[in-house]
């Protein structure tokens, strides 16, 4: 009997052990499931955005920007980034296959250039193959799943940008056509309507507001849909006085025409030969 009791105790101990093992297993399975769930959240990296955001893009476009959620690996971008025509045929020789991939230092933004040879009039690539896009036709830019981040995680879904090509744009940017809503009171915003989609980096980088002493006014820039305008909100309220909007002539639209002239221009037609010219528009805040 004693023996049996011992056995029973042992059995009890065994059952308890078994129970605790099962519990540990259940817990760890739960934990690992939680891990998996957590990981799948982390691994859900993907394309965050593609610029230009417009669904209508001139046929002589020179550049797309792809923003990712995470720092990405360089080296084989064209295994994952492709263009398709309206018949779903993959297009060849469209991108400029640079030896250097154009990533930002944080590896979260990739600049894709379209083969400039096909965009420029008079070069062989343009004459032989024409432009990559034809007005009124539909195209798809696809960043396919599996694009690897530096962390080793990969994009989990295809990102598809559908756009329609519009006729070529070979006009330099004319600042006098911009519609500007100047601020009048301390809390007003400054609004600029560019009247066409512009390069989103240019809009954020090549326009500055300065006060009468030339000091830059800090503030935030909000881009309007399709990058056709911006809204500037100063960090501190405006104070009475003179201000200037400075526009660098390297400011580009989405086909790389800038303020000096069109990307592809006739000899002698540039407004200035100096790439670094600055235009200035003055405005006045009348009250505090």
């Amino acid at each position: 009997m004693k023996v049996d009791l011992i056995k029973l105790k042992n059995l009890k101990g065994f059952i308890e052990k078994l129970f605790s093992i099962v519990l540990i297993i259940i817990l760890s399975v739960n934990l690992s499931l939680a891990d998996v769930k957590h990981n799948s959240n982390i691994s859900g990296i993907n394309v965050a955005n593609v610029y230009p955001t417009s669904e209508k893009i001139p046929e002589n476009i020179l550049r797309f920007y792809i923003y990712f959620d995470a720092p990405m690996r360089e080296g084989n971008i064209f295994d994952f980034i492709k263009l398709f025509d309206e018949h779903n045929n993959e297009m060849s020789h469209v991108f400029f296959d640079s030896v250097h991939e154009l990533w930002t230092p944080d590896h979260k933004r990739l600049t894709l250039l379209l083969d400039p040879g096909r965009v420029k009039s008079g070069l062989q690539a343009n004459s032989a193959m024409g432009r990559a896009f034809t007005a009124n036709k539909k195209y798809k830019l696809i960043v396919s799943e599996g694009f690897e981040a530096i962390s080793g995680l990969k994009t989990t879904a295809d990102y598809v940008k559908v756009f329609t090509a519009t006729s070529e744009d070979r006009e330099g940017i004319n600042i006098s056509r911009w519609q500007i809503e100047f601020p009048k009171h301390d809390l007003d915003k400054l609004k600029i309507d560019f009247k066409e989609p512009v390069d989103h980096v240019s809009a954020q980088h090549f326009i500055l507001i300065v006060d009468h002493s030339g000091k830059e006014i800090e503030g935030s820039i909000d881009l309007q849909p399709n990058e056709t305008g911006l809204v500037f909100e100063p960090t501190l309220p405006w104070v009475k006085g003179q201000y200037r909007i400075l526009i660098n002539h390297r400011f580009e639209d989405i086909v790389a025409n800038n303020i000096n002239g069109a990307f592809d221009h006739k000899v002698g037609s540039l407004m200035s030969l100096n790439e670094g010219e600055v235009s200035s528009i003055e405005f006045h805040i009348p009250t505090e």
Partner: protein
Amino acid sequence: MKHSISIKVLISTLFLTQFALASEPKSTNVLEFNDKGILFIADSTSSTIYGYETSMDSNKQAIGGYNLKGIDSKLAKHLQIKVRDLAIKDMALHPITKEAYFAISYVKKGQYHPAIVTVNQLGKIKNFDLKKTKHTEYLVSNTTKSKEKYWGKTPLSSLMFTDIDFHKGNLYVSGLSNAEFSSTLRVIPFPFVDKAMSEVSVEVFHANHNQMETRAPIRTLDIVELDGKEYLIAAYTCTPLVSIPLDQIKNGAHIVGKTIAELGYGNTPIDFISFTAQDWNKNNYDVLMLSNKNQSAQVIPLSAISQSNKEKGLDSFAGFQLAGTKATPVPMTGIMQLADQDNYHLLALRRNADNGEVELVSYMKNLYFRLSDFESEYDHPGYAYSSDGSQEMIKGIQNMMKKDEGFADEVVK
């Protein structure tokens, strides 16, 4: 309270110390040597060009050819990483020791890191110390002209250095912006002096019926002398070859380069080198060699460039053919990097199409192929060169190539 003040003091001291020290590259993108052994490193991440002093000690292997297979695996092993985590950005050859210097970017612990490593003919790999080696630096802001004091401080628009060339005390620097289509060519005197950089904007002239010109970033460049005058020859992103007289490159100038050739569209030129070649009659002639990403390398005699340069430039569509200066394709493909090694050799980093491995190998100048890449009837067992002497020259060349490519035991007496 006292404690927090001392921490503040410590932090500010550390900050000042860090500030006072010269920086080191955050990325290594483009390399170039001058004849005094200064290694220039262009760092696109911090928009800076560094000039490092290097050892001029002689290398016993300096005169030999390179025959290193699987160099990618060896470099990866040296850096304790996987091959897929290694990217070779550029290669330059030390003018005296003839060691190959590699600009590397590698992934470790979820981050890209820069490195310079050297390799000699025996395959010995050494780290080049970017911290301790004496160096100077020049910050190349991605802006032009003094009026632009406001611009260039945000990382929205950054410049990817595409090539640098050292010529008579100046560095000629080309770059590709990731946010604008600028065509600025920069010239920086060395030794570096603050604010000494000149900038010129270069347009490319296409002499077609519309007389068009365009902004375009230079992909690779070299400086050559044509009929006693110096020219910068630039290969553009869609392979037109453009000549720019060097004496026109002055700060603030706007230059229109002449398109003298189109060497194949849908192609990215990788490197330009110029050297003296020799024909079968042992006459010397200067050539420009262009290595390409999407087609075989091309050799162009400078005399042909000089001739095209005297003409008005390309003015009509040449069908699907190449146009302008005649370039001779040579059987060098898969070339990732190319350098002028010595009087007899070109050094190439190439990808072997059969096994995908990366190799560091020398090609003999004028021949532009490697005997060991091919299997010909000369290699068949029992093949005997004709005894009548008609193949003596072939035999001599093949024996020379066998020795050079590391197969001295296969030399036929």
